[in-house]
């Protein structure tokens, strides 16, 4: 219905204004005609007399009237001409006057006919005008209705336009998608149907764990080898003998010094005691050379165990029925008196300085062990140790004792040990396992060799029993040394 209406509106929209214009033109024409006729009719009504009437254009310009008037004039002239010759009763005169009167009558009749036709025409014009007015009014109301409908039409048209726009956009999209789908179907082939995965794609836990395990294992092993490679400390006796060209006299495992460093007094069957006894055997009973009578115990660095080794070795030698003199020749930082709990106001330094005599020698814990502590720190330790008096002390001690053992400062800091190495029969070097590097040992060994001092061998000290297999094959089964 609505759609049909709209179509009508669309058709009429061009027609109505045209009609309106046409009607209004016709109406104004009709109006003008009616007014013109009204004027003519009014003039004709007001004229009254024939003469007045004759001057009215409608009548004056009428050809019939004009022809009649001309005939009247001619007739008049004839009458007037005859009147001069003939009296009023003459037949010619009567005929002429009759003709003239007939013409006048004809003219009056014509005038009445004209008035009548003007009157008719006027009435016709009036009704014609009324008709046009009605038509115009109808057209106007039609136009108003149309205007209203046109507004509605515009509203609907806008709605339609927006709908069309949306529709077209959707259509374009749809077509685009169709094209994409068509393209895909060309390039992609389904080879195998996708399966729903049962486990997550990432992280691949098993692989990661395995990878971590392998990397950790090999990385760890590699690192261990690398650290081992970097570790240049003296550890194994085989390597020490090979690299330093010296015999290892013995290994002493690390022990807790909290209970005292003189293990030989505490437990005669401990591993450490056995180790010192082994060193004693190697030093004094080996076939290598003439057994040394004066032995210097020294080390490359401080804190490697010189004093402990000297004291314990002196004690185990004294236990084997040999007379031992232990001398603390570390005049700078002597420590023997602390270990044996002696007074240190007198000692080697005061003896060498000529202040004290043989009373500086004190009895040790073993029957065959005598000890000379270091004494007060002198200003010139190296000088004292290299003195004539030092040599005299050693030669007289060698007469009274079977073995003389010297504790000394480390080689690296001062020359004391090197000076002493020249007057003893042999030097024993204590190396702290896992701490002293081969470089350090080799450097100092060079000094000894330049002096042509005899080196008896190495004591590898503070060996970590847990980390080494040197004891394991013997302690594995029954926990004691064979």
């Amino acid at each position, binding site marked *: 219905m609505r759609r049909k209406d709209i179509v009508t509106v669309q058709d009429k929209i061009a027609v109505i204004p045209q009609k309106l214009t046409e009607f209004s033109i016709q109406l104004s024409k009709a109006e003008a005609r009616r007014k013109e006729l009204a004027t003519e009719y009014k003039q004709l009504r007001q004229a009254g007399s024939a003469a007045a009437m004759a001057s009215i254009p409608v009548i004056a310009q009428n050809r019939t009237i004009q022809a009649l008037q001309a005939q009247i004039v001619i007739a008049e002239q004839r009458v007037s001409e005859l009147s001069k010759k003939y009296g009023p009763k003459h037949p010619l005169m009567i005929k002429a006057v009759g003709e003239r009167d007939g013409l006048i009558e004809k003219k009056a009749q014509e005038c009445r006919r004209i008035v009548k036709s003007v009157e008719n025409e006027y009435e016709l014009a009036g009704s014609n005008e009324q008709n046009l007015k009605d038509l115009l009014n109808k057209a106007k109301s039609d136009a108003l209705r149309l205007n209203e409908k046109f507004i509605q039409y515009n509203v609907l048209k806008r709605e339609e336009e927006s709908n069309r726009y949306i529709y077209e956009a959707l259509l374009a999209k749809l077509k685009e998608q169709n094209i994409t789908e068509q393209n895909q179907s060309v390039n992609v082939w389904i080879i195998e149907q996708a399966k729903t995965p049962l486990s997550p794609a990432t992280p691949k836990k098993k692989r990661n764990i395995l990878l971590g395990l392998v990397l950790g294992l090999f990385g760890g092993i590699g690192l261990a080898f690398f650290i081992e490679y970097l570790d240049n400390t003296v550890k194994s006796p085989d390597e020490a003998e090979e690299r330093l060209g010296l015999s290892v006299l013995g*290994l002493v495992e690390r022990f807790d010094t909290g209970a005292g460093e003189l293990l030989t007094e505490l437990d005669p069957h401990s591993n450490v005691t056995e180790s010192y006894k082994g060193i004693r055997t190697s030093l004094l*009973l080996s076939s290598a050379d003439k057994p040394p009578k004066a032995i210097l115990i020294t080390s490359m660095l401080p804190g490697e165990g010189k004093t402990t080794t000297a004291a314990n070795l002196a004690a185990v030698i004294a236990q084997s029925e040999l007379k031992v003199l232990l001398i603390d020749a570390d005049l700078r930082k002597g420590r023997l008196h602390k270990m044996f709990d002696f007074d240190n106001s007198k000692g080697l330094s005061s003896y060498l300085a000529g202040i004290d005599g043989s009373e500086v020698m004190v009895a040790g814990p073993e029957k065959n062990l005598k000890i000379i502590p270091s004494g007060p720190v002198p200003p010139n330790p190296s000088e004292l140790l290299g003195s004539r008096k030092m040599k005299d002390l050693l030669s007289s001690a060698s007469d009274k004792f079977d073995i003389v053992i010297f504790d000394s400062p480390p080689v690296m800091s001062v020359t004391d040990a090197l000076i002493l190495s020249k007057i003893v029969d042999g030097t024993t070097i204590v190396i702290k396992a896992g701490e002293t590097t081969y470089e350090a040992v080799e450097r100092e060994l060079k000094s000894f060799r330049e002096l042509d001092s005899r080196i008896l061998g190495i004591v590898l000290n503070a060996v970590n029993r847990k980390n080494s297999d040197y004891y394991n094959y013997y302690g594995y089964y029954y926990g004691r040394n064979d």
Partner: protein
Amino acid sequence: MITTIITAIITAGMIDLHCHILAAVDDGPAAMEQSIAMARIAAADGITRIAATPHIKNTLHSPDIIRKGVARLNSALAELRIPVEIVPGGEVYAVLDPLLLDGYRLNNSRYILIEFPHTHLPRTAVSLLFQLAVRGFKPIIGHPERNPSIIRNPDLLLKLLSSNVLAQITAGSLTGDFGPQVMECACGLLEQGAVSFIATDAHSVQHRPPILSRGVNVAAEIIGREKALALVASNPEAVLAGKPVSA
């Protein structure tokens, strides 16, 4: 059980060249009773002769003490009718001066049982063995399979061995008493023919008793029963008799 008995019969007459059976000299038995108990175990295993080999290392026991100890133990065993004979010997620390060692030869033969330091094989080993050789000794290297240096590199031992330098392994090493590394080394040395003797190195009744048969059984699997038996019978027999050891 039957196998044990058969083994005992077959292996009857075994000789143990390395045994700390003498009482109160080293870390072996403390008293005579323990020595006798050890001898009983040895006899039950088929051992008929034992070399008493106390440690000669940190204490140089006089050869006289050893001889007297052996004599006393032998008379005690005879009295108790334990069919085991003890002969004198010693387990001598290798670095000792050969001049000190004359009294520690095995049954007064030229053979002497030596031990190297437990910690390593000294680089002077060749020189030490040479010193012994020039003094007329025939050294037998005791339990080389337990030396860390030799475990790492058995070739070190092979270089030392000759017709005059022989090797003795511990029976317990073959049965794994000292762990897998020692066992592996012992078996390897056996395979290479480097071993001349198997001995117990027994110290007491409880731990490592004087039993050879178990070690011999293991050795038999590696080199065959005949050769394995030679290591506890004919070879030590030759040593005690002062004759050359064949192969």
